[in-house]
């Protein structure tokens, strides 16, 4: 179809533009758009780029704090980590592409999130990921898992950034819609941070990196729609990554940033050349002229429509200070990257595209970004569920067998098969990765004693049963995981994965979860500095579990103070801090052993989280703890098993007999930690905690080679480890 032909209703609908949205376009232009212009509106107004269903809710997140330098609205969030340094981070989803083509979908997810970080002047220093697949029995799960892991590793390993930690879940709701959320953390000097804002009139727009091809056209639009039976046919809209090119692009971009010639810079991510140019112009109220014949292209006869909508990877767009182009050119030549001046900024506020001597697009920039639709989608509150007690679910039978079942269930079982495919040590600053018993990954800030603690968390089954409490819990668990290492939680990035927001029930989950997260972020003083929303995660009308993933970042001033939950020796004393109640709703044991997924999830008392965290932090900084582990899935029993396995030592002790055994062992009450103390420090630790008013229970001591809890558990550590280690390799074959 020619780019000036009359647009039919069908073509408009194919671009994901709703009739009322099309009316807005007609109003703003005062005429009908041509196909190219429609394509540009379509990607800019896609859910993926415009956040049109969630924007009004996201705006309520707390986004400021003493260490926040840049909150949401730029490529990534920026926090102050002292000494003139900044950590820059963000998490982003690549769900739809990864389902269609797992290797490239996941690989380009990693590549995209790294670009968001180095675009701001940061060298990427750590990658993490939260990935979710359908039930193991599903015929596609093994292939998708294998492809996604190979893709994440294939990209990150080659670029040379360590993939230090992550989480992997399985649930039937992800059968037709897997989740691949990747996070990147980078390190920058505070006086060398680059933004998409800052462009001036009359400045050259330069393109560098890979050439533009036909891959990924309409990726952002695809990522903003539900899947139907034809999902596999969308394979051509999945981008293809080249990590080698990304590595060159990182080095070249950081080298360019050492010069003083950049006004504004933006990577070409979703919606490629369109969104990068519109964002840089839009932020300063400028116009742009792009000469489409000068765009470096990979294929012949590419049209402006294809060039503007391509999502070819490893490309950057920068607006330079006039007259400095030769500096950028020399750097790109050194790194053998394509480079071209493709246009300039103007004061017209319009986006003008020229091709073969004609103007093929002339539209105002403003409506593309600031006038994007902003829906107040109707929503209904998710009905509350009753508390489920241990009495109601009855005896679990042999408790040893129950614990073994949890250890080998897909969500808990060791993920060694996955993380051994990730380079966790490149850059030689990794202090704790997936192979170490630590609640968060730890990377040292190169050349200093400081380290960042990084963790990815979400418990979707809680969010499903109670979006508000579940939303609180996601943030609280992230906070605890950072606290347990001895670091100070600083800020989070979030990746909100939900179903179709046009369904009021789903929108209710979105609003509920966001409200819960907001409350937790406020009380825990743990602001959101960047994030991503992925909606329409539905296939054939079946939505995923609501999955708002949090990527938390904490700072520890001296990495030698950091602790994990391994390294225990005979005689170390194990305590449980926090209160356990008889609330089994939405617990792991309820799902895995009783086959029920109902009930109210554990309540999150945010003030208690905070006061408990303060005590833990103090004990760690006073060198009084040998180990610390946050309790979450599987409760005390699974926590003890993990501590015992990590140190290859038994634990002999007892549990509170005020509670039914099932609750004492498996309830998932929040604000609880297991700590291990050298016998010499037992008295002082005991006194400190009791004085603080927190509940403290002595579980027992490290001894022997079995987990022996009087009247409840008696399992060899080696047996637990075999059970825990074996599930995934056996499943993958």
């Amino acid at each position, binding site marked *: 179809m020619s780019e000036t032909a009359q647009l039919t209703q069908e073509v408009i609908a194919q671009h994901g533009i709703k009739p009322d949205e099309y009316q807005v376009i007609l109003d703003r232009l005062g005429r009908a758009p041509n196909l190219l212009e429609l394509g540009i509106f379509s990607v800019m107004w896609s859910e993926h780029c415009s956040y049109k269903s969630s924007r009004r809710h996201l705006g309520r997140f707390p986004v400021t704090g003493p260490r926040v330098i840049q909150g949401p609205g730029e490529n990534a969030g920026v926090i102050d980590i002292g000494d003139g340094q900044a950590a820059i981070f963000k998490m982003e989803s690549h769900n739809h592409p990864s389902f269609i083509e797992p290797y490239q979908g996941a690989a380009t997810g990693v590549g995209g999130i790294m670009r968001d970080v180095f675009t701001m002047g940061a060298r990427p220093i750590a990658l993490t990921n939260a990935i979710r697949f359908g039930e193991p029995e599903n015929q596609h799960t093994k292939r998708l898992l294998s492809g996604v892991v190979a893709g994440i590793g294939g990209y990150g390993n080659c670029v040379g950034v360590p993939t230090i930690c992550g989480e992997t879940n399985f649930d039937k709701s992800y059968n037709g819609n897997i989740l691949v959320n990747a996070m990147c953390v980078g390190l920058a000097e505070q006086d060398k941070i680059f933004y998409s804002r800052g462009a001036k009139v009359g400045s050259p727009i330069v393109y560098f990196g890979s050439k533009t091809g036909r891959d990924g056209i309409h990726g952002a639009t695809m990522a903003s729609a539900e899947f139907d039976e034809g999902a596999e046919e969308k394979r051509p809209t999945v981008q293809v990554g080249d990590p080698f090119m990304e590595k060159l692009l990182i080095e070249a971009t950081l080298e360019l940033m050492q010069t003083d010639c950049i006004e504004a810079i933006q990577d070409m991510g979703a919606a490629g050349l369109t969104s990068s140019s519109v964002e840089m112009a839009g932020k300063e109220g400028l116009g742009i002229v792009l000469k489409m014949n000068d765009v470096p292209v990979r294929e012949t006869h590419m049209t402006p429509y294809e060039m503007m909508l391509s999502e070819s990877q490893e490309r950057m767009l920068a607006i330079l200070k006039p007259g400095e182009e030769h500096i950028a050119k020399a750097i790109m030549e050194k790194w053998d990257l394509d480079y071209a001046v493709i246009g300039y900024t103007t004061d017209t506020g319009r986006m003008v595209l020229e091709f073969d001597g004609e103007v093929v697009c002339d539209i105002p920039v403003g409506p593309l970004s600031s006038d994007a639709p902003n829906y107040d989608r109707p929503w209904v509150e998710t009905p509350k569920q009753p508390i489920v007690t241990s009495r109601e679910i009855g005896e679990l039978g042999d408790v040893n067998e129950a614990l073994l079942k949890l250890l080998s269930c897909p969500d808990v079982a060791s993920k060694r098969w996955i993380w051994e495919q990730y380079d966790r040590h*490149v850059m030689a600053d990794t202090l704790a990765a997936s192979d170490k018993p630590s609640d968060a990954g730890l990377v040292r800030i190169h050349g200093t004693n400081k380290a960042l603690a990084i963790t990815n968390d979400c418990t979707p089954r809680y969010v499903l049963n109670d979006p508000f409490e579940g939303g609180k819990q996601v943030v609280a668990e992230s906070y605890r995981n950072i606290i347990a290492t001895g670091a100070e939680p600083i800020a989070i990035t979030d990746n909100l994965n939900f179903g179709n927001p046009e369904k009021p029930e789903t929108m209710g989950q979105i609003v509920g979860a966001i409200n819960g997260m907001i409350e937790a972020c406020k009380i825990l003083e743990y602001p959101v500095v960047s994030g991503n929303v992925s909606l329409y995660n539905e296939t054939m009308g079946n939505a995923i579990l609501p999955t708002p993933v949090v990527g938390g970042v904490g700072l520890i001033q001296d990495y030698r103070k950091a602790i994990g939950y391994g390294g225990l020796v005979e005689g170390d004393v194990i305590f449980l801090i926090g209160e356990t109640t008889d609330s089994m709703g939405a617990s792991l044991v309820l799902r895995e052993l009783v086959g029920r997924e109902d009930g109210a999830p554990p309540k999150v008392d945010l003030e208690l989280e905070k006061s408990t965290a303060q005590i833990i932090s103090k004990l760690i900084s006073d060198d009084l703890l040998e180990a610390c582990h946050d309790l979450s899935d599987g409760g005390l029993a699974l926590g003890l098993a993990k501590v015992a396995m990590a140190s290859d030592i038994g634990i002999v002790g007892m549990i509170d007999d005020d509670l039914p055994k099932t609750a004492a062992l498996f309830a998932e009450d929040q604000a609880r930690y297991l700590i291990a103390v050298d016998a010499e420090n037992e008295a002082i630790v005991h006194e400190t905690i009791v004085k603080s008013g927190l509940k403290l229970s002595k579980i027992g001591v490290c001894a022997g080679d079995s987990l022996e809890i009087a009247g409840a558990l008696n399992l060899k550590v080696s047996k637990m480890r075999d059970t825990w280690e074996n599930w995934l390799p056996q499943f993958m074959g």
Partner: protein
Amino acid sequence: MRAAVIVYPGSNCDRDCKVAAETSINAKVDMVWHKETQLSDDLDLIILPGGFSYGDYLRCGAMAVQSPINAEIMRHATKGTPILGICNGFQVLCEAGLLPGTLLRNNSLKYICKDVELVVTNQDTIFTKAFKGKPNPIMTVGNGEGNYFADQETLNKLHGENLIAFKYVDTPNGSLEDIAGIINEKGNVLGLMPHPDRAFAKELGSDDGALIFRSLLG
């Protein structure tokens, strides 16, 4: 001690090698871009770092030996300058013909990153003498192509001339005879797959790799 780390496009352990040599033996380390055509004559060590030179496209290390700097590496090899190739650097040394054999795809067909225990099978080389009397070193491997292969004649020669420097206690990748690192006949070129550049300080999990650098101090 003056060292040079060669930086190919796609090298990603170049900084790690620099820091490892600085930390282990206080070496003065230059980073040398692959397009350079000169390497100083007074170098005491040349390191070919790990990573994915040229993206490992075509074949690991195959493109790197086409870089302009390669002629200088060959000149120094002949001259007797110690040359250490780690991971991708080992692959480059094999492609350059400075070491025999080749590194195939791991037998699991997957990238593998894990700690490995090594046996220092020849402790009389300029790179390994500091391992004498020490327990088996622990280092990490991180590669997709670490599966050492050579024909029988080459293996016989490696044995006969005691050119196998490191073996895995438990091979992670299917390497013939568990070979992890080999040295040339002249004794100045070492290639190994495990990373001493990630094992030079206790907080990284091991400082055993520092002994390779310390050996070079004589």
